[in-house]
């Protein structure tokens, strides 16, 4: 990666979210969330289910439409309080890669095609270039030999690594991970976490919704603990996870750390 991790000093943050609100009907899921992510940071979003962490992630690339607030990713600024131009949303998504809990590989294409097709359709790359990039990324996630296989012939852990490669092929500035190991056996989850750790070391900016506290503690620079649509606590990961200040966070971490 050409972008060395920087602490953000003197540089505007790569992602800036201000007072973001989202409700599903009468249910307020995000009650005014503000987050800044400098380039190169790995940010973990943790909290109980229903806390709004996945919704926040999905609002960043407009898989969910927020109702109020402001957002900026790289050079794309979005006022979320009104309707947003489709072009602008596509520009926003162009900066963002997304990895889903259930991988969502396209089952009717080979592993290679999964990575090649979006590059061809969205970035207009040639077949040769797209395949070269795809094979290179498959090599990086340790699955070069699976290129011509069907996704159905790959294990869950392999599918998730392929999904990471597919997202990376689009040259995102920020990678969003939505509980990437929650659908996997703990053992298989480790191989996905290893790939994510490598990615973090390479300087990629990452926002990771996770229940993997060890990963959050060791790999992420900063952890945000969310509950009931609010940010309850944020800070350096080890501090937030080991010595949470609020009662709500203490409850949560003592429960998950006991497991």
């Amino acid at each position, binding site marked *: 990666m050409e972008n060395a991790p920087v602490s953000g000093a003197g540089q505007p943050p790569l992602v800036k979210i201000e007072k973001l609100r989202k409700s599903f009907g009468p249910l307020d899921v995000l009650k005014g969330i503000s987050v800044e992510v400098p380039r190169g940071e790995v940010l973990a979003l943790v909290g109980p289910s229903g806390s709004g962490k996945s919704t926040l992630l999905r609002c960043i690339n407009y898989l969910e439409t927020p109702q109020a607030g402001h957002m900026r990713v790289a050079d794309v600024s979005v006022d979320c309080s009104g309707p947003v131009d489709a072009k602008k949303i596509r520009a926003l998504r162009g900066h963002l890669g997304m990895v889903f809990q*259930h991988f969502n*590989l396209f089952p009717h294409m080979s592993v290679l095609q999964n990575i090649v097709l979006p590059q061809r359709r969205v970035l207009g790359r040639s077949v040769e270039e797209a395949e070269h990039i795809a094979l290179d990324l498959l090599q990086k996630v340790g699955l070069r030999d699976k290129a011509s296989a069907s996704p159905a012939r790959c294990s869950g852990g392999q599918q998730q690594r392929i999904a990471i490669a597919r997202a990376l092929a689009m040259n995102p500035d920020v990678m969003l991970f939505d509980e990437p190991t929650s659908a996997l056996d703990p053992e298989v989850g480790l191989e996905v976490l290893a790939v994510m750790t490598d990615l973090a070391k390479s300087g990629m900016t990452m926002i990771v919704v996770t229940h993997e506290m060890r990963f959050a503690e060791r790999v992420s620079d900063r952890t945000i603990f969310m509950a009931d649509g609010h940010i309850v606590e944020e800070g350096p990961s080890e501090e937030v996870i080991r010595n949470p200040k609020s009662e709500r966070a203490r409850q949560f971490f003592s429960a998950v750390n006991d497991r």
Partner: protein
Amino acid sequence: MSWENFLILLSGLPYTIAVTFGALIIGAIFGIPVMMLRISNVWILRTSMIVLIALVRSVPPIVWVFLIFFAIGTAIFPIEPLPAALISIGAIAAVNMAEIYRGGLAAIHHGQAEAAVALNLSKWHTFKDIIAPQVMRVSVPLVATYAIGLMKDAAVASTIGVPDLSYQGRYVTEMTYEGLTVMGFVGLLYVAISLPVAWFSRVSYNRLKRKAAV
């Protein structure tokens, strides 16, 4: 039954196949826009398709065939039996295919479209490259099963004079009074077309199940 009469029966076979597969192809093509309108966000489009689908399905094929043939034929412009049969049975096939596609669409995990959106694929490419091929794939066994039902519906084309298997069967019966033998042969010929289609349906279903099970 004489050899000549058997040949007369056989001459109906191409018409039965033409009406069946012609209607199936018409249905496979026009089923796509019907399904798209059926799931449209626009209330009036969606509702009018719900009404149309219910209407087409609740009237027997024989009535539609007569309606198209006589209503259009006498009131608007003269129409040959074969095109009239293709239009009416094709229309029936279109609404049924639309419902098969809709079922196939519902079977596709919403994560597929989400992944396509997150990768920034356009709506058209998401449909063409991601959704449609998967809908087609899950629809194949159902379409094959439906083709057998359609072949039986296609027999009503004989009532407006399409010289298909049923038509020739009745014709030879009236000439020879050997109804049992003649219609027995007609039945066997229908079975001969259905069996390979049924076999194809089963094979494609098993293949699909195997792929989904891994």
